[in-house]
């Protein structure tokens, strides 16, 4: 199975590709632990599951303000303030979807049969993924445009079958 550090680098490379190509925001690593964003109000978590030779899920956690900024950039708008929460969530789901797609592309020589779900997005406060036991976690903490903390987490394990 892929080493945790290799997976974390793969996640970062995939996220960079997505943010540089379609969102036009700088994304940089920011330590090993997620920053506490609970004081920033509501948060969103986009997640997407996968199965095949490897199974698990990828999540992206960020503040609503960050999500609005991402959605605005993706849509070519000056500000995301006018966007509905549904539209903002849709954009976060697409970021999770494209990041997972890029990860899948990068590991397809090792795992040829990964099947990916349709992304889901939830909003709330102090959101964090809760996988079952036996999963390895690859976590990448980043900042967008030196302002917004964004955490990518991938929980994965070798399939039994």
């Amino acid at each position, binding site marked *: 199975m892929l080493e945790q550090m290799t997976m974390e680098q793969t996640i970062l490379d995939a996220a960079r590709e997505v943010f540089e190509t*379609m969102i036009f925001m700088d994304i940089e690593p920011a330590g090993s632990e997620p920053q506490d964003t609970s004081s920033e109000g509501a948060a969103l978590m986009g997640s997407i599951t996968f199965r095949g030779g490897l199974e698990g899920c990828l999540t992206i956690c960020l503040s609503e303000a960050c999500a609005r900024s991402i959605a605005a950039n993706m849509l070519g708008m000056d500000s995301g303030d006018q966007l509905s929460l549904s539209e903002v969530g849709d954009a976060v789901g697409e970021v999770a979807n494209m990041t997972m797609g890029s990860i899948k592309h990068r590991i397809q020589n090792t795992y040829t049969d990964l099947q990916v779900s349709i992304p889901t997005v939830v909003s709330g406060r102090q959101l964090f993924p809760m996988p079952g036991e036996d999963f390895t976690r690859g976590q990448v903490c980043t900042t967008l445009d030196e302002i917004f903390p964004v955490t990518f987490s991938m929980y994965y394990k070798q399939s039994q079958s």
Partner: protein
Amino acid sequence: MSKSLMIVDDSATMRKIIMKTVRMSGLEFDRTEEAGNGAEALEKLKTSAVDIVLCDINMPEMNGVEFVKQARQMDCSKNTKIIMVSTESGQDLIDNLMSSGANGYITKPFTPERFQEKLTPFMN
């Protein structure tokens, strides 16, 4: 020559992003349509055929693979150019789509240049 375009994706936001990127590519369409899944797209094609369809693969109700197969069996869309736009990048899947009747493939994340490259051959 006037051209028409349909964007098929279950995400309304992604449909807007694709439309924005098509505009940025410099390509112009006289008429654009949208659909949220393959079944909705087939229904719209029956009443209003288009020249080019940009279609996602992973969608609820009817996915892009099934859409291509059914679209190729309908008189109204047998000559429509269908370009898949998806995060899926497995060669087996792409081969399957092309043999089912798709005319091209664009992976997400994408750029305006990529749309220009893939769509320009079908604009004349």
